[in-house]
């Protein structure tokens, strides 16, 4: 069915033609908004009126605002990846999906009952297995089901709650009844997007939103939080709860970042957590911080690579052992993915009678298991009308075109068949106007002290065709905000409160080591990029002049630096006195664009983007936006290199400025700045050490270009107003603590940073990095540069070279000590050695 079929006003700009002037209602499909031609359902009336009252241009503006706000909030996938792949998960459609109070009461009751039932099933499966023993569930459901985790059997979860967070997909059939399509417990996704949708909608349609009595979402999150605290008997002031995400590679990382900010649970990845003495800890700069509860956004099978023998870098080795010891509350307990088993739902009607003594309130979407004769016969008789799917393994994909019957016969218990899904249609905003889309409603529930609480709202997932709705990825689907209407006035409850309490920073001036590590490297890469760009710009500037290459006296100096730093190859072409222009230009282009060379600009810029991505949730939106511009580098190699280098340098400066300005002077900022200082000092020391002989053989121009590449030319001119002389130039670059580009300045900053790092021993200059920083600073302060002159083998020259070499060595020691002490740079991915004594007889 095409969208335009229902689209009465597409392409027509005549207003105020009613937006939803339906020409025809679809047959055999439930229509959410209309009960008949031009007969809106009463709970849709306020929304339809509000939309009909606006002209198309205004609606387009609204749509743009919705899109823009979603984008601004960063709800895109992997924003630092290839720009071509940038997409949005569950893009928000500005027309909400209202549900009447009466209908919602039915859904709510059904979801609570289902959650209670599923929890009982989980408790039995991971406990006495009475349902298995008395034949209520088939043995395949446990023994041939990858969602049943043997290693979790017998674990008693915190508060004895086996299910604490649950989501269910419902669709409305032609008869107007809601049916269950899928249950989620392993890692229910979408609640963050539901929250984001509500935030955007309440801003864009603030008048309509506040005039209509719509139930608020925020109390649900409060209930979730309170129940978790109560269950795990956590200290209320300082609850050690973290939000565990697979990291920026996740398609819905945005949701994790948003929930982390909203709930005030620090966002952590597998590498941030460690297991000691049967407990979980968060690795922070000041040491290990105990974790008492985990809101998990990582599937069962990735959560503990050690116990589950999975080769994933995302999990925490030993997590299940901590659960065995009952030292953690994980939402949901690992193993709850048993609930996600597709075939489980067909057994629920009987289980409900048996375990709860009542009828199952929410009907299932009709499905049959091929593992019993009824299902198999059904499959044989009606295969072409039914959909075949995996019965156990949620990740399995069944190729519908292959010889299905043969597949089913070899392993009947692995398959199930389902009736076709015909979900209801709801109005959606298309750029041209309104059209219709299919939708599924995802509803969320959390455990409370008494049972379960359902979020009054949720995520309506929509798509133009049923197939995308059923199996598509979040990027291919859209979403709507669900407005649960209330007959009573709504108590005001601020949605925004959550956003202003960033618990982690309030709690302590501490940082996960992984984040600090990324900040340090971000600082280093930023500075490395800037230094390299300055150097290349200096070369390009000279090439673009009128002079012949041989006539540029400082060129050999600059090229020598490039060669020593491995930026251009060390060969005769660049070393010969007679330079070949064309060859040089080629080398320089490589230095800009060769992605496979770690010394190239484009390579370093990629590292900048990568490290930024890893600390994205701690940077301001403006600074992330600046970094997005770096993506263009390398996309059009035909552009003028000088212009490109200038532009990139400008972007980098803007980014640094924004990032530094908007960051609190906490540990993140310190590590970012330390990285920058270390890199700048190293770069400068190397520049001078390499340049020294050239400087002396050709003083004036070379001195000037040395000042230029170390970004101190203006300072020199302002200060000395004289010709370039060796001693004052080196004084400015090495010893002048007031010059932010000097070596002494970098050392003094480093010394002050290390002083502020968290440490165990209170005594000053006790740790190695502090002593090294002091040594560097003192040495440069005591450096005697008077009477420094050029001359063959002059002793001062040698002294200077020795000084610079030792500073380089100390800087390297310094970063090693910092890493060893704070960042413990063991291989990022733990190395899983699964070895056995080799069986041999």
């Amino acid at each position, binding site marked *: 069915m095409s969208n335009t079929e229902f689209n009465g006003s597409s392409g027509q700009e005549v207003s105020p033609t009613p937006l939803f002037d339906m020409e025809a209602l679809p047959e055999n499909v439930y229509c959410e908004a209309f009960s008949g031609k031009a007969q809106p359902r009463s709970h849709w009336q306020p929304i339809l009126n509000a939309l009909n009252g606006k002209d198309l241009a205004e609606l387009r503006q609204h749509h743009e605002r919705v899109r823009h706000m979603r984008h601004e909030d960063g709800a895109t996938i992997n924003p630092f990846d290839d720009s071509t792949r940038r997409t949005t998960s569950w893009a928000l459609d500005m027309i909400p999906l209202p549900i009447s109070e009466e209908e919602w009461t039915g859904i709510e009751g059904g979801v609570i009952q289902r959650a209670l039932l599923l929890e009982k099933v989980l408790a039995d499966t991971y406990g006495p297995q009475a349902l298995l023993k008395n034949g209520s569930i088939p043995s395949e459901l446990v023994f*041939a089901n990858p969602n049943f985790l043997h290693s979790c059997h017998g674990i008693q979860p915190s508060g004895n709650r086996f299910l604490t967070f649950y989501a269910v997909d419902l669709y409305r059939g032609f008869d107007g009844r809601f049916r269950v399509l899928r249950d989620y417990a392993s890692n229910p996704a979408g609640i963050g997007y539901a929250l984001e949708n509500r935030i955007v909608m309440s801003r864009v349609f603030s008048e309509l939103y506040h005039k209509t009595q719509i139930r608020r979402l925020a109390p649900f999150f409060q209930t979730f939080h309170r129940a978790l605290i109560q269950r795990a008997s956590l200290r209320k002031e300082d609850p050690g709860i973290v939000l565990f995400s697979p990291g920026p590679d996740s398609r819905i990382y945005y949701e994790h970042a948003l929930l982390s900010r909203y709930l005030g649970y620090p966002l952590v990845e597998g590498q941030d957590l460690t297991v000691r003495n049967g407990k979980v800890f968060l690795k922070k700069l000041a040491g290990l911080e105990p974790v008492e509860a985990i809101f998990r956004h990582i599937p069962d099978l990735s959560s503990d690579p*050690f116990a589950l*023998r999975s080769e994933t870098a995302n999990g925490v080795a030993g997590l299940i052992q901590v659960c065995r010891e009952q030292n953690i509350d994980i939402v949901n307990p690992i193993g709850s993915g048993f609930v996600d088993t597709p075939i489980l739902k067909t057994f629920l009607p009987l289980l409900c009678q048996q375990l709860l003594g009542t009828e199952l309130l929410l009907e299932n979407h009709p499905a049959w298991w091929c593992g019993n004769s009824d299902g198999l016969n059904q499959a044989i008789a009606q295969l072409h009308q039914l959909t075949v799917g995996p019965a156990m393994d949620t990740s399995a994909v069944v190729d519908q075109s292959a010889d299905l019957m043969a597949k089913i016969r070899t392993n009947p218990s692995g398959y199930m068949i389902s009736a076709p899904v015909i979900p209801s249609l709801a109005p959606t905003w298309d750029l041209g106007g309104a059209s219709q889309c299919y939708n599924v409603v995802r509803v969320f529930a959390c455990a409370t002290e008494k049972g379960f609480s359902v979020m009054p709202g949720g995520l309506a997932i929509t798509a133009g065709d049923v197939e995308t709705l059923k199996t598509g990825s979040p990027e291919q689907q859209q979403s709507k905000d669900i407005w649960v209407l209330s007959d009573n006035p709504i108590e005001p409850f601020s949605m925004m409160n959550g956003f202003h309490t960033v618990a982690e920073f309030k709690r302590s001036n501490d940082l996960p080591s992984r984040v600090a590590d990324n900040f340090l490297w971000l600082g280093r890469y930023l500075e490395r990029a800037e230094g390299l760009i300055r150097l290349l710009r200096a070369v390009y500037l000279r090439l673009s002049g009128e002079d012949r290459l041989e006539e540029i006296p400082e060129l050999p100096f600059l090229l020598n630096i490039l060669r020593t730093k491995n930026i251009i190859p060390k060969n005769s072409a660049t070393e010969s006195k007679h330079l070949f222009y064309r060859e040089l230009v080629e080398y320089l282009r490589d230095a800009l664009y060769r992605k496979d060379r770690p010394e190239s600009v484009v390579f370093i810029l990629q590292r900048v983007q990568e490290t930024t991505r890893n600390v994205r949730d701690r940077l301001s939106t403006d600074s992330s936006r600046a970094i997005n511009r770096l993506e263009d580098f390398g996309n059009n190699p035909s552009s003028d290199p000088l212009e490109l280098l200038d532009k990139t340098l400008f972007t980098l400066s803007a980014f640094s400025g924004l990032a530094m300005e908007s960051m609190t002077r906490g540990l993140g900022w310190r590590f970012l700045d330390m990285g920058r200082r270390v890199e700048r000092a190293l770069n400068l020391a190397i520049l001078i050490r390499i340049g020294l002989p050239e400087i002396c053989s050709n003083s004036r121009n070379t001195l000037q270009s040395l000042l230029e590449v170390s970004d101190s030319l203006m300072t020199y001119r302002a200060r000395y107003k004289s010709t370039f002389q060796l001693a004052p130039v080196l004084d400015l670059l090495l010893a002048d603590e007031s010059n932010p580009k000097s070596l002494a300045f970098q050392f003094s900053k480093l010394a002050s940073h290390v002083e502020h790092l968290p440490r165990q021993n209170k005594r000053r200059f006790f740790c190695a990095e502090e002593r090294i920083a002091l040594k560097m600073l003192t040495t440069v302060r005591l450096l005697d540069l008077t009477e420094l002159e050029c001359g063959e083998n002059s002793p001062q020259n040698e002294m200077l070279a020795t000084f610079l070499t030792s500073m380089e060595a100390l800087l390297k020691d310094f970063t090693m000590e910092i890493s060893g002490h704070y960042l413990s740079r*063991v291989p990022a991915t733990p190395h899983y050695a*699964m070895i056995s004594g080799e069986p*041999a*007889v």
Partner: protein
Amino acid sequence: MKYRIIHNTSYKYSAPASLSQNELLLHPRSTPYQEVLECQLSIVPKPQYLHCRTDYFGNTVHVFMVQHPHNELAMSATSIVTTSRPLLLVPDATVPHERVAQRLAEHKQPIELEASQFVFASPLVTINTMATAYARLSFPPGMPVLKGAIDLMQRIFTEFAYDKTASTVDTTVEQVLIKRKGVCQDFAHLAVSGLRGLGLAARYVSGYMETIPPPGKPKLVGADASHAWFSVFVPDFGWVDLDPTNNLIVNERYITVAWGRDYGDVAPVKGVVMGGGAHILSVMVDVAAQESRQQQQQQQQ
């Protein structure tokens, strides 16, 4: 028989390992034919954390963590076990295999339900047409289950070459079938896969076997190794262990440590290390009879 088994495993790391987590299945099980008198575990450096549990299959599992930097890790398990010869069934008198498969599918008795968990594919043992077809040759219609299983064991013993170089921990059943060679783990996996393909219950067993030196030669300490075989379910009786590597029905010279669906459930030592660089693994197993054969015969007389 009374045995003392020493099973040493050690890792040497090229760089200090900051954290090491290990799971050990080295504690022999008690069975109707085997009594565990003693089992001592020693770990160097001393772990800060040690936990012991019984897993889903009834095996004893130790989990431990060394939480400070270390360059070496040595684990040693010393067990004293007495074994007796399992009851022997008349293979011809066992239930036909089709009937076994049916009873497992119906699992009316608790013991059959318990056995039925070993009917399905498991992480390391797929059920595939190749392995099933291979096993089917030993199970013509009406074949008594144990007779067929013994035949399968004999065929694997004769048709497959023992070759240490042909196999790794990850070798699949299909690869073994194609190469026609492997180690005891591969042979056990192949038998397990084939039997399950016929709807029979088969489990993977890990343990040791006493090796007897050639006549006149002294027994070399450390010549032993950990060993693996398979076990098949015979209704109204229980499990019968068969060793395709040696073509033997498991007897009192075998010591059972653990069983599960496949190697993954019972790997004697598995670990995860943070840092550590490259590592060198060495394993030493010694199975020593505590009384000489003559003494035992005298006692019996």
